[in-house]
C-alpha cells in the first residue's frame, strides 16, 4: 500500500493509494462544486449538471456512455453534495484505463438541448420522489432554517421552479466556471499503476483549461429555530434537529466519536433511551463537517402520540450530556466500533477511494488507515467533553413534520442569548465527572 501524488500543468491534482495485491481498482473525479456554490436562481444546477454529464460529450452520445461503462463491467455512479460532485467507477483492474477515459469524458458534457429537456423531466421526477418519501423534505427545511442566508442552507436538488427555469446556456456557464482543471482532483485506489495513471490523466485531461475558482467561506452562526409542519396524511412524526459542531481539524475524530456514543444505531445513548425501549422507531445522531463549519444532525421517527415526550426527553439528555459529559467506558466502546468499521470498509478499494479523494479535495492531505486508527485511539474523554461545552447539543433548529399541528419547545432546549452568542449551561466541574 503506497500513496502517490502528482499535479498536471493545468492544476489537476492526481492522488492514489496503490495496492498491487488488490482484486479491483477504483477511480473517481472529485470536483469542488456543490449546492453551496449556486446562485439562488440556479438552485439545483450542480446536481442537474451531474446528470447531464451522463448524457454524453461532443464525441459520445448518452447511449454510448451507458453502454461503454457496462461493456467493461464498471460499477459506476456519481453524487452531488453541498460541497462536491463526485464521479466514480469500481472496476476489475485491467479496465481502469478505459474507465478513466469514460469518466474524463463525462466532465466535458455537450449539453445538447434535447437531452437537457429529457433530463429535466427526470430531475423533476427525482424531486417528486424525494418529497413523497419520509421525511418529506424536513431535512432540507431544517438546513434552510438553521443556515439562514449561509450557502450551506441550499438544497441539493433545487426546486420545481428553479429546475423548470434553467437553460442549457446557464448550465454551460456554471460548468465553465467550476469544472476547471485546478478545481478537480482525480483519485485512485487499489490495483493501479501510478505512473500509468498520470500518463492516462495527461492524455485525457491535460488540455482542460485552468481557472480561478473561489468559494465564499465564512463560519455560519446557525439559527435557533423551531418549525412544526403539519402533514395530516403522514402516519409517523419525523423530527430533524441541527446544531453547530466543530470544524477544526483536531476535533474531527472526537466529534465523530461523540456522535457514535450519543447516537449510532447500536448501544448509543439514543439507542437505549428511545429505540431499545420502543419509544421511537428510530433515533440517531450524525456529525458532518464542511469547509467552514461542522454540524450535528439528529433524526427521530416516532408515533405522534410519543413525540412531545420524546422531544422533551431528547433535550434533557442533550442538556445532561453538556453538564456531565461522557464516560470512559462509552469512549472505549465507540473507539472499538468506529475503528473496526474503518478496517472492514477499507478492504474494498471503492471505499478507500472516497476517503483518499475526499481528504485531498478538502484538506490536500493523505491519511492511511493506520494514521486514522491512531488518531481515533488518541482521542480523550476531555476532548469530547470540551466539544460538548463549546457546541452544546441542546441548541439549534428543530423541524418536525407529521400529523401533529403543534409541539412545544422543550424547556431543556437552550435559546440564544440576545447578543447572538450560544447560551451555554454552566457546569461546576467541567471535566471531572466520573
Amino acid at each position, binding site marked *: 500500500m503506497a500513496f502517490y501524488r502528482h499535479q498536471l500543468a493545468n492544476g489537476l491534482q492526481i492522488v492514489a493509494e496503490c495496492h498491487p495485491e488488490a*482484486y479491483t481498482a477504483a477511480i473517481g473525479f472529485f470536483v469542488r462544486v456543490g449546492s453551496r456554490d449556486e446562485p439562488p436562481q440556479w438552485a439545483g444546477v450542480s446536481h442537474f449538471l451531474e446528470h447531464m454529464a451522463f448524457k454524453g460529450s461532443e464525441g459520445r452520445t448518452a447511449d454510448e456512455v451507458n453502454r461503454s461503462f457496462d461493456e467493461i463491467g464498471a460499477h459506476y455512479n456519481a453524487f452531488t453534495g453541498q460541497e462536491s460532485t463526485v464521479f466514480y467507477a469500481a472496476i476489475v483492474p485491467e479496465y481502469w484505463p478505459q474507465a478513466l477515459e469514460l469518466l474524463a469524458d463525462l466532465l466535458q458534457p455537450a449539453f445538447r438541448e434535447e437531452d437537457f429537456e429529457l433530463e429535466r423531466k427526470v430531475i423533476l421526477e*427525482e424531486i417528486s420522489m424525494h418529497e413523497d418519501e419520509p421525511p418529506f423534505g424536513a431535512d432540507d427545511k431544517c438546513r434552510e432554517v438553521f443556515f439562514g442566508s449561509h450557502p450551506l442552507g441550499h438544497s441539493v436538488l433545487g426546486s420545481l421552479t428553479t429546475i423548470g427555469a434553467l437553460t442549457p446556456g446557464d448550465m454551460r456557464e456554471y460548468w465553465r466556471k467550476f469544472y476547471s482543471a485546478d478545481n478537480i482532483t482525480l483519485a485512485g485506489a487499489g490495483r493501479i499503476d501510478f505512473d500509468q495513471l498520470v500518463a492516462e490523466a495527461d492524455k485525457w485531461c491535460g488540455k482542460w483549461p485552468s481557472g480561478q475558482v473561489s468559494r465564499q467561506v465564512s463560519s455560519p452562526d446557525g439559527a435557533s429555530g423551531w418549525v412544526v409542519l403539519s402533514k395530516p396524511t403522514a402516519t409517523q412524526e419525523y423530527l430533524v434537529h441541527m446544531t453547530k459542531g466543530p470544524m477544526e481539524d483536531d476535533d474531527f475524530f472526537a466529534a465523530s466519536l461523540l456522535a457514535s456514543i450519543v447516537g449510532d444505531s447500536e448501544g448509543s445513548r439514543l439507542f437505549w433511551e428511545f429505540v431499545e425501549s420502543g419509544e421511537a422507531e428510530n433515533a440517531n445522531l450524525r456529525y458532518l463537517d464542511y469547509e467552514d463549519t461542522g454540524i450535528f444532525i439528529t433524526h427521530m421517527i416516532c408515533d405522534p402520540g410519543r413525540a412531545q415526550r420524546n422531544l422533551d426527553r431528547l433535550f434533557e439528555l442533550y442538556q445532561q450530556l453538556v453538564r456531565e459529559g461522557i464516560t470512559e467506558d462509552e469512549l472505549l466502546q465507540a473507539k472499538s466500533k468506529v475503528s473496526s468499521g474503518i478496517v472492514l470498509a477499507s478492504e474494498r478499494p471503492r471505499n478507500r477511494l472516497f476517503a483518499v479523494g475526499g481528504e485531498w479535495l478538502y484538506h490536500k492531505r493523505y491519511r492511511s488507515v493506520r494514521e486514522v486508527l491512531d488518531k481515533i485511539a488518541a482521542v480523550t474523554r476531555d476532548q469530547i467533553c470540551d466539544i460538548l461545552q463549546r457546541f452544546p447539543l441542546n441548541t439549534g433548529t428543530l423541524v418536525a413534520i407529521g400529523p401533529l399541528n403543534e409541539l412545544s419547545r422543550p424547556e431543556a432546549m437552550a435559546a440564544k442569548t440576545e447578543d447572538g452568542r450560544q447560551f451555554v449551561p454552566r457546569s461546576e466541574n467541567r471535566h471531572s465527572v466520573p
Partner: protein
Amino acid sequence: MGETIFCHEFPNGLVLIAEPMSWLESVTCAIRIPAGSIYDREDLPGLAAFSQELTLRGAGGRDSRKLIEDLNKLGIHRVEDVSSAHAKYAASMVASKLPAALAILADIVRRPHLLEKEVEPIRRGLLQDLQGVEDEPLEKLGRELRRRYYPSPWGRPSDGEESGIERIQLKDVQEFHGRHYQPNKTIISIAGRFDWSFVVDLVGELFGDWPAGEPPPVKTVNHQSKYGHIPFASQQVQIGIAYPCVPYRHPDYFVASAAVGVLGGGTSARLFMEVRERRGLCYSVYATYHTLRDWAGVFCFAGTTAERAQETLDVLLSEIRRLGEGIRPDELQRLKARIKSGLVMLQESSAARAMFIARDWYHLGRVRSVSELSRMVDELSCEGINDYLKRNPPGNFTIVTVGPRELEVPDGVL
C-alpha cells in the same frame, strides 16, 4: 482465488460451511436458522420477527445491556434479519475476534433470556416500524407485490402485521423459540481469515450438543387477484410488476437470470434505456430476480408522477413482453462483463461471500466456487438464453400500484 470450500455436517444436522479468504483481515460468520416468517402462527403474523428481537435482549451470562456493550467492545458489526424461511444472524469483525463472536452468537440463538420485561418495549418498537411503513410508498409497494405474487405464507411480510404484533405474548415466543431454534437444517457460514480445523472444533463445542428438532412442513395457499392498487397521498405513482421465473436451483436458473439482467440490471439495460433515457418518465426503474426455494420471480419497479403513470405502465409492459423476442449478442457481452466484475468484487468482502455460500447451500446443498461460476458465465450464449425466453416468455403478470391514481391494466396481461 476462492477455490477451497470446507464443509462439515454435525450429527445434530447443523451444517458448517466455510471459505478461506486469506488476503482479508476480516471474517464474517452468518447463521441461518429455519425460523422465518413462514412459521409464524396463522393468528400471530410477526411471531418470527418478534422472537428474533427478543433473542437479542440478553443471552447466556449477559443481560441486554452487557450483551450490546461487549459486542461493541469487540468491534463486531452485526446484521439480523428475518426472511420468509430463516432467522438470520451475521457478524463481521477483524479475524482475531471470531472465537469471542461465535461464543456470543451461540448464547444468542441457544440461550436467550426471553424476559417478560422486554416484551412491551419490543411490541412498541415493532408496531412503530409497521406504522412507519405506512409512510413509505416503495416499502408498501414491495410488501403488497410479494404478498400477491408468492403463495401464502411465502409472500407474507416478514415483519408481520399489527394484528399479530399486538397479541404476541411471552409464552408464544418461548414456544416458537423452543420449537424452531434448533440445529437441524441450520447453516453456519464463515468467510474470510480463519483456521478451518480450529473453527470446526469451536463450532462443535458451541453448537454440537444443541438438540435437534425437525422444521415442520408448511402448507401453502395460492394468492388472490393479480392487480391491486393502494391509494396513497403522493405526487408519484409507484408501479411494481412481477412475473414467474425459475428458482435458483433449477437448471435454467443461469439463463433465466441473465435475461433479467438484460431487461433491467444496468444503465444500458432495456428498462433504463427505454423508460428513463429515451422518455424521461422516471428517475428510478429496474428489474431484479428474487428467489425462494421453490418459487422465484422477476420484480420490476418504476415511480413516476401521476399524469405519466399510465404511459409508464404501458411502456414497462411492452418492454417486458418484448424480451420474449430474444436478446442481442451485444447485450449479452455487456451482461457477462457486469456479472464477472461482480464476481471479482465478491472476493473483497467476507460479509458478501459468507451470505453467498450460505445461500448456495440452502438452495443447492453445495457451494459453487467463484471459478465454477466464472465458467458458467463464459458458457452463457444468446441461443441458450433465447431458447429459454421462447419457452418461458414473460407473462402472467402480477401488478401493484401505490399512489393517487389507479391505472388501467390492458386486457390479457394478468
